[in-house]
C-alpha cells in the first residue's frame, strides 16, 4: 500500500505532537498543584461542635455501620455534676444506672464517683468509645448545662471518604475539611479553657520540664484552633468579598 505509509507517518507525527503536548500539560498541572499543596497537608473531615445541633444524622449517615463520629467530654468544661443532664433522663426516677434513668441508648457513658466535697458529690463521665454511636442525645442533654459533651469524628475509625456522607446530610453544614495534624475542632469555650489550663501549667511547672512541655502542648493545641477559626473567618469573608467585587463589575 504505497499511499498509506505517508498518511501513517502524518498520523504518527500528529500523535507524537499531541502526546508531547499532553505530557507537558500534565507536568505543568502537576507542578502547579504541587505548588498549591505546599501551603497545606492531607485533609480530614471534622465537625465544628459550635455548629452542631445534635440532630442525630452522624449516627445514621456515616458509611460505617457504627458511625466514626463519637462523643467526647471536655473535662475542663465539665461540672462533674451528680445530676448530669447528659447522662440522666429529664424525668429520671433515681440517680442510678437503671434503664429508665439513662439517656444514652447504648449505655456508652461511664459514670464514676470521684469525691464528696461540702455536701456535693462529684462524678466523672467518660465515653466508652466502641459503644458510642454518635447519636448526640447526651450532647443535647449536656447543652442544657455546660455543654462539655460534644461530637467529634474519630480519625482512627474514619475512612476519610473523599466526600463525607454526614457532611452532605448535616443540616447546619458543620463539617469541614481540616489539616490532618489538627485532627479536632474544639468548641470556642473549650479552646479558651484548655489554653488557660496550658498557660497555668506552664506557669506552675517550676523545674518540672515534663509538666511544662505538657502545658506548652495544651497551649499550642488551643492556639492551633484559634488560627484555624481565624482562617475560616477570613476565607468566608474573602468569598463574600469576591462576590461583592463581582457584583460591582
Amino acid at each position: 500500500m504505497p499511499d498509506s505509509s505517508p498518511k501513517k507517518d502524518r498520523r504518527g507525527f500528529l500523535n507524537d505532537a499531541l502526546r508531547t503536548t499532553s505530557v507537558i500539560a500534565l507536568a505543568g498541572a502537576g507542578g502547579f498543584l504541587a505548588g498549591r499543596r505546599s501551603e497545606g497537608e492531607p485533609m480530614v473531615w471534622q465537625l465544628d461542635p459550635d455548629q452542631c445541633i445534635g440532630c442525630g444524622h452522624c449516627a445514621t449517615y456515616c458509611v460505617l455501620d457504627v458511625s466514626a463520629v463519637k462523643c467526647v467530654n471536655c473535662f475542663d468544661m465539665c461540672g462533674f455534676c451528680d445530676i448530669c443532664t447528659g447522662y440522666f433522663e429529664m424525668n429520671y426516677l433515681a440517680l442510678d444506672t437503671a434503664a429508665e434513668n439513662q439517656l444514652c441508648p447504648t449505655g456508652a457513658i461511664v459514670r464514676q464517683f470521684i469525691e464528696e466535697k461540702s455536701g456535693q458529690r462529684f462524678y466523672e463521665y467518660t465515653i466508652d468509645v466502641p459503644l458510642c454511636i454518635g447519636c448526640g442525645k447526651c450532647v443535647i442533654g449536656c447543652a442544657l448545662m455546660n455543654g462539655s459533651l460534644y461530637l467529634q469524628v474519630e480519625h482512627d475509625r474514619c475512612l476519610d471518604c473523599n466526600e463525607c456522607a454526614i457532611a452532605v446530610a448535616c443540616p447546619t453544614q458543620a463539617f469541614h475539611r481540616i489539616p490532618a495534624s489538627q485532627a479536632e475542632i474544639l468548641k470556642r469555650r473549650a479552646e479558651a479553657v484548655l489554653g488557660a489550663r496550658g498557660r497555668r501549667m506552664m506557669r506552675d511547672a517550676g523545674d518540672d520540664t515534663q509538666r511544662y512541655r505538657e502545658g506548652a502542648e495544651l497551649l499550642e493545641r488551643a492556639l492551633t484552633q484559634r488560627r484555624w477559626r481565624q482562617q475560616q473567618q477570613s476565607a468566608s469573608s474573602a468569598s463574600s468579598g469576591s462576590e461583592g467585587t463581582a457584583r460591582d463589575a
Partner: protein
Amino acid sequence: MTRWEQYLLAFRCAAVSGIFVAVVGALLLVDYTQRVAEDPLNAPEYFELKQQLREDPNNEALIAEFRTLDERLRTAYFEQRRFSWWGSWLMFAGAILCVAMGKWAATLHRRLPHPEPMESPEDLQQNDHRTGRWAVAGFGGLVVLAVVGLYGLMPSSLPSDRQQLAAWIGSEAVSDMPRGMTTPALIDDLAATRPALPGPGAADGAVEAPKLPPPDADLPPLPSGFPSDEELQANWPRFRGWDGLGIVQDRLPSDWQIETGEGIRWKTEVPLPGNSSPILWNDRIFLTGADEQHREVFCFDASTGQLLWRQEVPSTPESTAEVPKLMEATGYAAPTPVTDGRRVYAIFANGDLAAFDFEGRVRWARSLGIPKNAYGHASSLAMYQDRLIVQFDQGIRDEELSRLFALDAATGQTIWEDVRDVPNSWSSPIVIHVDDQPQIITCADPWVMANSPADGSVLWRADNLRGDVGPSPVAVGHTVYAANEFPGVAAIRADGQGDVSQTHLLWEADLGAPDTASPLATEELVLLLASYGILTCYDATEGGDPLWELDFDASFTSSPTLVGDQILLLGEDGEVYVVEATAEEGRIVAENHLGEPCVTSPIVSDGRIIVRGKQHLICIEPNP
C-alpha cells in the same frame, strides 16, 4: 471427571451460590427496611411507656416492664447489627464463590469463535456510522428532553439573582418575615431599595481630588511645635480618644433610628474599604481606606459629612512591587491614622506611610517596606509631642525584623528606632506619664514593653503575653493593663526597670480574655470584651475572680469606650449597646443598631457618635 461434568459442577455451584447471594441480599434488604421503619433505639412503644412512667413514676410493675422493654430493644439493636455484619460477610463469600465458579465454567466452556460471512468492509463502516449518527442524534434529543423536563419540573419561586431579589423583597409582604424585621435595611447591598439618606449623602463623585503637588512646589508653611494636652483633649486625634485609653468625659446621644434617619446627623459612603477608625480635629474627620491598588486618606466635614478631599498616598516602587499577603478580615487599611492638628499621618498594610496637611497636600511620604505579617499590618499610629510613633512588628521572633520607630513629624525622618525581640503583632502603642516620665507602652508576644520617647531605650518589660497579640494596652495611674486571649490580662506596675516580669506583676487573670478588643480600665474596674460576646469585669486593684460577666448576643471587634459613666459597645453586626458598670453588676441600659456591620472604634465628641460602618461613616447626633 470429564470436562463436561466439571462444567456442570461449576455451573451448578455458580447458580446455587448466585441464588444464595440473592437470598441473603434480599434478607439484608428486608432487614434494612425494617431497621429504618422501626429503629429499636427510636421505638414508639419505648417512648410511650416512658410517658406512662412519667405520669406514674412509682408504679413498680411499670418500671419492670419498661426495663424489660429497654433490654429487649437494646438487644434487638445489637442483634440487628450482628445480623447485618454476618449477612454482608456471607453475601461477600457467596459472591466470591459464585464469581469463581462462573469464571471456571466460562473457561471450561469457552465460546469459540465462529465467524459469520463478512459484509464488505465499506458497507460495514458506513452502516455503522450512519446508524451511529442517528443514535447520537437521538441521545442528544433525550438530553434536550431531560433538560427541558428538569427545567419545567423544578421551578423555583426564589429569585435567581440580586436584581430579582431586590424586586422580590419589595413585592413580598413584610408579614412574610417571621421575626418582624424591617426588610429594606437588612441586605446591606440592596441600596436601591433603601429610603433616601438624610444629609448630603455620598458625594464622592462631585469631589475633585486635589492634584498631587509637584515635588518642588512651594507649600505654605505649617505651624511648628505640637498641640497642648488641652487641645488634644478637645479633639479625637488618634485611635481610642486623645490618649488612646477609650475614656472621654462626654455624653451619648440617646434616641436614634438608623432606618428612618431620626437622630442621624449625616451618613456618608466611604469610597474605599478599611478597618481603620475615624479621627477628629476641630471640624474635620480623617479616615483611611485601601484596596490592593489604592491607599487613600479621606477628609470629611464633621458638621455635614461631606467628603472634602480624598488623596492617594504616594507609593514607592518597592512598596507596590507586590501586594502584601494578608487576611481579608484585616484589609489593607487597618491602622487608624493620627493627627497633631497640623498634619494627618497614615500608614497602610504595605508599609506606606505619609503625612498630609489639612488641605490634602502631601507633606512627606516614605515606605517602611512590606511587613511580613500573617494577618496584615494593623497597629495604629501614636504621637508624642512632635514625634510620630510607629509600632512595626513583623516576621517571627528570631528574624528580629520588628521595630518601634520615632519619626520627625515635620519631615518623616527617623529619630530613633528600637529593634524588638518580638514577632508580628496587631496591638497599638499608647503614651503614658509615670512620675512625669513619658513612656511608650507596646504589646507583643511575649513582652509588654515601655520605651522612652526621647531615645527609644527600653525602660522596662514584662513577659506576659503569648500568641497573636491584638488588644492594645491601657493604663491608669502607675498601672498598665495588657490583655490578650492568651494567657489573659495582666496588671503591671509601670515604675520598674529592666525585666519586671517577676517583680512588678500586680495580678493576672484569664477568664474572658479578649482577642481583638482592647481593655477598658478605670480606677476601680478593668473590663475585658471577648470577641464571642462576653464582657468580664475585674477589680482593678485586686484582680482575682471576675466580679461579674455580661453576655451579649453579638460578636465584638470594636473596642469599648467609656463616655461619662456609660460604656459604648459596638457589635460586629452593627449592634450598639450602652452598659452601666459598677463593681456589683453590669447592666445594659440601651440597645440600638447601626444597620451595617462595624469593626471600628467610634469617636464620641460633643454628644455625637461618629462611627465607621462597613460602608458608611455615620454621625449620630440628636437633632438640635
